[in-house]
């Protein structure tokens, strides 16, 4: 099932994941700036939105050089959603409900799982494990 993984992906993969997490963080900055710009009528927030837009897509593009696009997209969107929910709750002074907190935990567990699965996938190349 994992026959198409490129070889020599062990090196630099950690750096790609840091770029992917950064892309998620920039995505949060983008969402906040868009909200603050009030449909791009506030100049300062609009410029901030434009900068975060470039930064998040650049970081995503760098990360996707080595991370599978399906994984990269899910993690990018997942971190953006977690950040929006947490910051939204702080800014609006609304505590997260237990159900919302549980879904946050599911997303974070999924991201950690993907990071581990990505590393394991790279490792199996050299050993030619079945599967």
């Amino acid at each position, binding site marked *: 099932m994992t026959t*198409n993984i490129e070889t020599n992906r062990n090196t630099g993969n950690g750096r790609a994941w840091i770029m992917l997490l950064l892309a998620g963080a920039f995505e949060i900055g983008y969402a906040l700036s868009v909200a603050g710009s009030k449909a791009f009528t506030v100049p300062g927030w609009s410029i901030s939105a434009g900068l975060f837009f470039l930064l998040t897509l650049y970081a995503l593009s760098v990360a996707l050089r080595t991370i599978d696009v399906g994984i990269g997209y899910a993690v990018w969107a*997942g971190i953006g959603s977690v950040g929006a929910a947490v910051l939204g709750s702080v800014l609006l002074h609304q505590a997260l409900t237990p159900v919302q907190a549980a879904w946050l935990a599911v997303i974070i*567990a999924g991201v950690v799982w993907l990071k581990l699965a990505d590393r394991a996938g790279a490792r199996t190349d050299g050993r030619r494990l079945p599967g």
Partner: protein
Amino acid sequence: MSWLHLGVAVIFEIAVAISAGNARGFTRPGWTAATLVSGAIGTFFLSLALLTFDVGVGYAIWTSVAGVGVVILGALFFGQRLGWQKLLGIALVIGGVVGLRLSGAA
């Protein structure tokens, strides 16, 4: 019209991911332009869709359909056939985003 807007937004969201993957850290000008233009168009149509959709439901559909679409296109065009561990992780994250958005989070 809102379903049409949401559908177009999903298509461009998938295009963002595929283009960003091909842009290789913005070193390829054509794919870089495609990434940025797709991102701008996708955001525009999503905001149109969210005028009529409930925001939580709109985001949930948008992210989940795009997430599945990216996995399928990644397999078709990049040969990135993912093992069950990676598919399970993607399902966890996308499922979590859907649950979070439907539970009324910001």
